[in-house]
């Protein structure tokens, strides 16, 4: 019981949008497709909806085990919400939501009272009952997106596909709507895929996150897995909030600017150039060089606004910039000042030998 794509390839001219992508979404799951622009995430979503067809080959799109690869969009029973909503401007909110029911052939079209009841229920679900007779042009962006969702849900789709559902909204509405989507999913448990380029959004909302890059799935896993164990330097870098140090792997350690950090997981690696990733909250600052391996750095700027303090630093030996994040308590205890020299300890270090590329 799932929505599945197998070996989907799609080229636009010479541009490879999807390169043998396979992905399985379990029934009732909420999965985010996360990637930079041009990574193929929207194309993948449109392929599942039937708005694009995969290039000929062994590609398959399966809804609950049924092969729908050759079935047109109008018969797939997928719900799709477009990035810019694509509401019908000449129809009221009510009629927009009812559209999918009204276009059904006579034999399967519900009677008028049933249509009205279903739309009323959906209006309640999106909390827009008083606006039923408004036109899309009279709604705010967040309201339009909710109408688009209700319209997609009205046809009782087998899968809900959302293309950058919050992309065109401002930060506050975005956050509210994100939480609302999560709640909605908890209520109706419909298999859902949504596309986003915002890693925070993906990690917060989704049950699982698939990271796409150049038309391939780079990694798929729960938000925790993705955040704590990125499979590649790309994933590490794309999730953001990370420092990058280049160094050299040698005898189960990585040497960064003359300082050697023990990294047991690289013990098998041969002598090679490497990139080490450290999240800012895994950077510790001390005034004295401690028992742990440390290197010297100069504080460039402190910003203590918000729940954590963000520091910009510069390595003394090569001037390379990096960031550190301290809790408010740590910050108050340490009282760092701009221009001051400190010793840096790296609590958690992830090393990728150089032959991986970003």
């Amino acid at each position: 019981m799932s929505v599945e794509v197998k070996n989907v390839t799609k080229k636009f001219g010479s541009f490879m949008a999807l390169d043998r992508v396979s992905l399985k979404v379990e029934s009732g799951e909420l999965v985010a497709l996360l990637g930079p622009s041009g990574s193929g995430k929207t194309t993948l979503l449109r392929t599942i909806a039937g708005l694009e067809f995969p290039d000929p080959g062994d590609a398959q799109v399966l809804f609950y085990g049924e092969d729908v690869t050759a079935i047109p969009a109008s018969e797939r029973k997928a719900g799709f919400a477009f990035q810019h909503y694509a509401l019908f401007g000449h129809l009221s909110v009510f009629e927009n939501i009812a559209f999918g029911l009204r276009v059904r052939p006579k034999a399967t079209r519900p009677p008028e009272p049933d249509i009205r009841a279903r739309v009323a229920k959906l209006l309640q679900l999106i909390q827009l009952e008083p606006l039923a007779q408004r036109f899309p042009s009279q709604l705010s962006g967040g309201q339009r997106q909710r109408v688009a969702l209700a319209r997609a849900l009205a046809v009782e789709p087998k899968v809900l596909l959302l293309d950058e559902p919050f992309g065109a909204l401002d930060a506050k509405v975005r956050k509210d709507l994100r939480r609302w989507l999560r709640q909605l999913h908890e209520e109706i448990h419909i298999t859902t895929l949504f596309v986003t380029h915002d890693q925070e959004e993906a990690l917060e909302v989704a049950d699982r996150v698939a990271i796409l890059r150049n038309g391939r799935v780079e990694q798929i896993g729960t938000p925790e897995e993705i955040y704590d164990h990125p499979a590649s330097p790309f994933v590490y870098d794309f999730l953001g909030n990370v420092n990058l140090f280049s160094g050299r792997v040698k005898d189960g350690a990585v040497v960064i600017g003359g300082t050697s950090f023990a990294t047991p997981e690289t013990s098998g690696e041969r002598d090679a150039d490497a990139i080490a990733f450290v999240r800012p909250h895994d950077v510790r600052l001390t005034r004295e060089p401690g028992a742990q391996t440390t290197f010297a750095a100069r504080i460039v700027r402190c910003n203590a606004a918000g729940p954590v303090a963000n520091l910009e630093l510069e390595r003394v030996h090569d001037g390379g910039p990096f960031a550190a994040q301290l809790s408010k308590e740590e910050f108050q205890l340490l009282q760092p000042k701009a221009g001051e020299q400190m010793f840096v300890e790296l609590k958690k270090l992830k090393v990728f030998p150089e032959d991986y590329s970003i």
Partner: protein
Amino acid sequence: MTPAAPTLHLPRRTGRHHATSESPLVRRLLIGVALAFLSLFLFVPLISVFTQALAKGIGFYAHTIMDPMTVSAIKLTLIAAAIAVPLNCVFGVCAAWTIAKFDFRGKNILLTLIDLPFSVSPVISGLIYVLVFGAQGWLGLYLNADHAKFPWLANWLNDHDIKIIFALPGIVLATIFVTFPFVARELIPLMQAQGRNEEEAARVLGASGWQTFWRVTVPNIKWGLLYGVILCNARAMGEFGAVSVVSGKIRGQTNTLPLHIEALYDDYNFTGAFAVASLLALLALVTLGLKLWVEHNHAALNDAQISSP
């Protein structure tokens, strides 16, 4: 004694002064030039059409309009427009739909071809039809050939005395050719700007192609379509060049309104010519009125869509 209230020296307000506005003299001069030009080339001729038309009194005016030749010309013009405009409407929507919603090879060639009637002199388009369908043209040669291919077709055309040139079909063909860019040209940019998202949304919601067209596409383009139809109709009724080549100008039979005006003028019946011309001038005024109304509605709709976030 109270001390004098301090006076505030505010900068003198000199009307609305924007960086882009000109001095009053320049503004008046520009407006004056524009008005003089308009009067000379538009208002004066328009007024003179109506004064000339009524120069011999309302009785003569009515007599000219009621004349069987004039009535026949009016009828022919209306029939030609009634056939050409709906056909061009269908063609224009098809062409615009194809160009705006699909990507295919030769799209630019099609776009250029649609503009062809605008760039070709109407007389030439008329001549093309004479060369293709005339008695000495391809059709004539085919019908007069000793052993025509598809003899049943040749016989059928001969038996039913189907004539194209110097008859209604020729006039309709020439009118269609000359007016076909109007609807398409109006709709292509509109449909391109609207994109495919709403159609795609309708498809995913289960609508058939036909339902998508009638329920989503047509409501979105209706004002643009109406605008195109109005312009197309005005041109179809007023077309002279192409129709004059193919019509044969048989009075009471193949004369359209513009041709009838020329005929009256050639007869030195100037008042009569102007009387009939005033009908076309009235049509132009009605067209302008309709155009304003449509533009107003269209703009209001667009504003509503743009002003909202």
